[in-house]
């Protein structure tokens, strides 16, 4: 029972991994020049930021579920 419960919680967390797909595969979300950050246009820094966010999401799923 506990095992199954833990599994249920894990499968819910896997949905977190969908977020980067939704954000990054819809370019209209981030295809802008402004606001820029230290001179880097939004289009570029926003996608690089998602490298870090996705790594953190993956780590959360790992630590919480597996």
């Amino acid at each position, binding site marked *: 029972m506990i095992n199954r419960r833990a599994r249920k919680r894990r499968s819910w967390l*896997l949905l977190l*991994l*969908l977020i*980067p*797909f939704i954000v*990054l*595969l*819809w*370019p*209209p979300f981030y*295809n*802008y*020049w402004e606001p*820029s950050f*230290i*001179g*880097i*246009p939004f*289009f*570029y820094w926003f*996608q*690089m930021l*998602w*490298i*870090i966010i*996705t*790594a953190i*999401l*993956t*780590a959360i*799923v*790992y630590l919480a579920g*597996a």
Partner: protein
Amino acid sequence: MINWVATSVFIFFFLVVTVLGFVAARWRQGDLNQIHEWGLAGRRFGTIVTWFLLGGDLYTAYTFIAVPAAMFGLGALNGFFAVPYTVLIYPLVFILMPKFWSVCKQRGYVTASDFVKDRFGSNALALAVAFTGILATMPYIALQMFGIQVSIAALGIPLTVPILGLNVDLPLIIAFIILAAYTYTSGLRAPAMIALVKDTMIFIVLFATIIYLPLKFGGFGPIFGAVQKNAQVHRGTFFAILSDKQYTAYATLALGSALALFLYPHSLTGVLSSSSQKVVKRNAAFLPLYSLMLGLLALLGYIAIAAKIKPLAGFGSNGAVPALINASFPDWFAGFAFAAIAIGALVPAAVMSIAAANLFTRNIFKEYINPDSSERQEANVAKITSLVVKFGALIFIIAIPTAQVINFQLLGGIWILQTLPAVFLGLYTNWFNRWALLIGWAVAMILGTIMFFAAGLKAVYPLALGSLSLSSYTAFIVLIVNLVLAIVLTPVFEAIGARRGQDLTSPSDYDEERAPVEAQEPAPEALG
């Protein structure tokens, strides 16, 4: 003119990794006459070694040369899609690869083709997967040799030397022989060990360039200002951000490439050499550090625009970043940077040739040529095949114009993605009929190749629905065709009596929790 200081530094580091490559045979000693020892290093790599190996294996000459070059020559669409691409890889790895690792571990598979054969009970489908893997890997290895070629040219060393009246690509052939020799003797242990050096060197070069160069040009503001100006001058060919007609191309390039990467034999070999499914999962969280590196390296292409760099002659945009390094740094550092790029190409080239050799040995030689071969014979065939594959890539790079090398690597991407239904969906279901999968694969392979040539050797096909432009990554378009055929034809084949094959795997084989963990050495020893 040969730059002697840079060349000396370059040769020094090349010699260091050559020695390492041979020493690696004695690292965590195993019987190198067994294919899983030679070709998977005994499946004993822990989190740290796997991180270096996969990082060194996945981030190739494509990352160091082709991505910044695309940024330099074409801008946002063709260059920067590599960032969402290398972000989306890791959630996919986290979900798919522990399952793949578990079933391969529990049933002793060495290749994806081994898995497909048992899962769908089909020799023909297994052969198709093995064939595609080898075929798609060849131009990828050629791209690595191209990376080495660019580095050599950047040092001012002539690419060809006249011997007996013939122009021989001597420097490249020397690099090739060194690579071939230590891969032959040490197997996967060699690139794993060299990856430690490669990654360290690449990170040093990255930090130096990405801090020093923007300071030199007055920060990122002026650099992107130059990029914007460049987009106005080259309207229609160079894009500072996406035009609204490029959205589908950008998204399908990112998603299609992310799905394709872990179908490549060299990626799967990296995964299978790790000691547990936990190692794979941890790496899905840690490997994005390399993607950050890729994103920053991509910006070097833009810095080269701001610096008004004239690319090295003969390499098109691919000569931009090497020329930038030559123009901005002292000779000794340029030598170090080019050594980093060349060694950066050696590691994946070695893993790719090992992976292709594993495929040939397990799924073609043992299956069709000599089914009774002993383990020793198997390992020998794999070693020799790794030589043949590399030699094939060498011929390829010498024979075809350098500007085309990258295009053929894109074609390889179109091919490898067509094994997705059998390999990735196979991890979840055996519902598909083997013949439906095979036909889907065959149609997609042919159609993808035709579309690639029809688009003028480009991986983006100008698809349009009426006035709506849906230009997309060809690999992705034909994957949809492939999937539709597999789904529609499965009930058809069942109805006419061509039954599904027998599934030799059982559900518990896929259970990540039950998969055994290989004993690994404690971390300090693992690094030594």
